[in-house]
């Protein structure tokens, strides 16, 4: 097991290199002078030159990259000129919120997707199946920002059941505040989950060992939960992990709509402010996050399906 993790981490290094390079370049590929842009052209040439020196922008590119990496590994992602704080702090403030949103959304989407997928698979090719599949297609085409707005207007403003912005205080405060945003993301992700879970259940239903289970006299309930769902859930873990990128993309939009101070809205704000340093830090963090989630999913998969552990 440890060997596997070590091996995967080693594999990840070239990717980390590439990923960090892209993040790094986000400052340096800017047409024009980044410092000048970030100071909104208000600084004098001397100040700009001084800042160039301070931020090491006068050094050769490869040296800057190494400094960047070195600092990053120590948790220092530079300082945002525009927002006048350390980038690491900006990110640290937002990451908890975003992770909460992601987890909450994943849970809600599983809660929505599993019963629907089961229902559709059990009544394959008949009306409920078609309805679920059609609903999935429509759901996939619905822009998340609109779903968010709709939920916000209906349940937040009109019915006043839920607050419409912010993260809230305390455990229940969080749950309450984040329900609508998480639901928006869940509705956004559910069609994909339903599709793959349904497919996976259908595959398992046709397997020989299910017929064998029936021949053992086991009740349909037991077969469904202990055999079918357990086996069908396995590929879904991969689907969830693969779609983490999708979820994060959705988070960018949902956080903006619901004014939640997570990494996503931070990204949009930073782009608006031309805050290149923060964009750089965020780019790095997002990609590392995705890679970690994929690694965790692989490990989880291995724990559940012993066949993979062998390979």
């Amino acid at each position: 097991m440890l060997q596997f993790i070590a091996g995967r981490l080693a594999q990840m290094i070239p990717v980390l290199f590439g990923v960090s390079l892209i993040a790094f370049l986000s400052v340096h590929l800017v047409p024009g002078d980044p410092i000048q842009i970030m100071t909104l052209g208000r600084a004098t040439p001397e100040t700009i030159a001084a800042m160039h020196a301070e931020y090491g922008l006068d050094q050769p590119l490869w040296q800057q990259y190494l400094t960047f990496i070195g600092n990053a590994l120590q948790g220092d992602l530079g300082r945002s000129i525009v927002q006048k704080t350390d980038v690491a702090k900006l990110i640290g403030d937002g990451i908890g919120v975003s992770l909460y949103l992601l987890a909450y959304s994943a849970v809600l989407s599983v809660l929505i997707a599993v019963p629907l997928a089961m229902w559709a698979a059990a009544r394959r090719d008949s009306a409920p199946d078609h309805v679920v599949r059609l609903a999935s297609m429509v759901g996939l085409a619905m822009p998340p920002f609109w779903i968010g707005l709709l939920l916000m207007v209906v349940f937040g403003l009109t019915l006043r059941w839920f607050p419409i912005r912010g993260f809230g205080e305390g455990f229940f405060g969080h749950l309450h505040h984040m329900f609508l945003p998480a639901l928006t993301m869940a509705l956004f992700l559910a069609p994909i989950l339903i599709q793959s879970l349904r497919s996976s259940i259908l595959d398992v239903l046709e397997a020989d060992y299910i017929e064998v289970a029936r021949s053992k006299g086991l009740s349909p309930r037991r077969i469904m939960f202990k055999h079918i769902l357990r086996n069908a859930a396995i590929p879904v873990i991969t689907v969830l992990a693969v779609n983490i990128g999708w979820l994060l993309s959705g988070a960018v939009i949902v956080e903006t709509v619901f004014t939640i101070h997570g990494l996503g809205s931070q990204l949009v704000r930073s782009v608006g402010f031309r805050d290149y340093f923060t964009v750089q830090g965020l780019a790095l963090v997002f990609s590392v996050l995705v890679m970690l989630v994929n690694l965790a999913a692989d490990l989880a998969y291995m724990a559940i399906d012993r066949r993979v552990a062998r390979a």
Partner: protein
Amino acid sequence: MAIADASVKLSVAGRIGRELGGWPLSLKIGTGLFLTIVLAGLFAPLLTPYDPYYQDYNSILLSPSWAHPMGTDMNGRDIMARVLFGTRIDLLICFIITFVPMTYGVFIGAASGYLGGKLDTVVMRILDIAIAYPFLVLIIVIIAILGPGVHNIYVAVLLVGWTMYARLARAEMLVERGKDYILAARVLGFGRGRVMFGHALPNIINSSIVFAMSDFVLNILLLSGLSFLGLGVAPPEPEWGAMIAESKDYMRQAWWVTTMPAMAIVLTGTSLSLIGDGLAQRLGQNRRGLM
């Protein structure tokens, strides 16, 4: 007697009719719907008397009526005209950002999968890196560098959108190249290029085409999402996402202002998904398609 019928030659129209008749229901509905939308966009000036940019301050936030079938927005512009002209914007841009990367993406992926070696290693590394970025985030980062605007969206997507197709094509090619007919072609002495593109590629292109349909939907969401965030098409252009962004504050009193463009997105996206589902069935991959 009956034997003679089997060899009747159908006219071109007859053959087309027969092919279309054999299409799965989802493909028929999807294509019909999508074509309607395309035509609506194409003939937009003929379908509405209004100028999508003209602001009539006497007609602010009018609810849907015979005069304005989709109502008017907070600047007095007719929404239906904007939705129809917006169709041109969204469909054109998304068409380009879907199918252009598809061509070279499939090309690169297929070559990488077939030829292996150094090319494959390099391509795989690039793909790994690209996968590590959430797509929207990557596009936003690129736009952060280059600045907002449609032309930069083109640059961003054309720069990174090919990776999904490359992954798919590569995976399929890895399977395909082990098959007997490829071996036969090589034994016959055909050059690598010919075998790769003439023989193998036509067989793996199906999954890419089906995938392109869902990619098209996702790109519509991407474009409208970026525009919503202010990073894409900006008002007064009638792009659907931008329209929703502009009017979001008026959702409570004038539901039609945001809902009409949203419906356009949903309808277009659903028709594309139906086409994708139908294509998958038709091309034989998915035996359990919808309808």
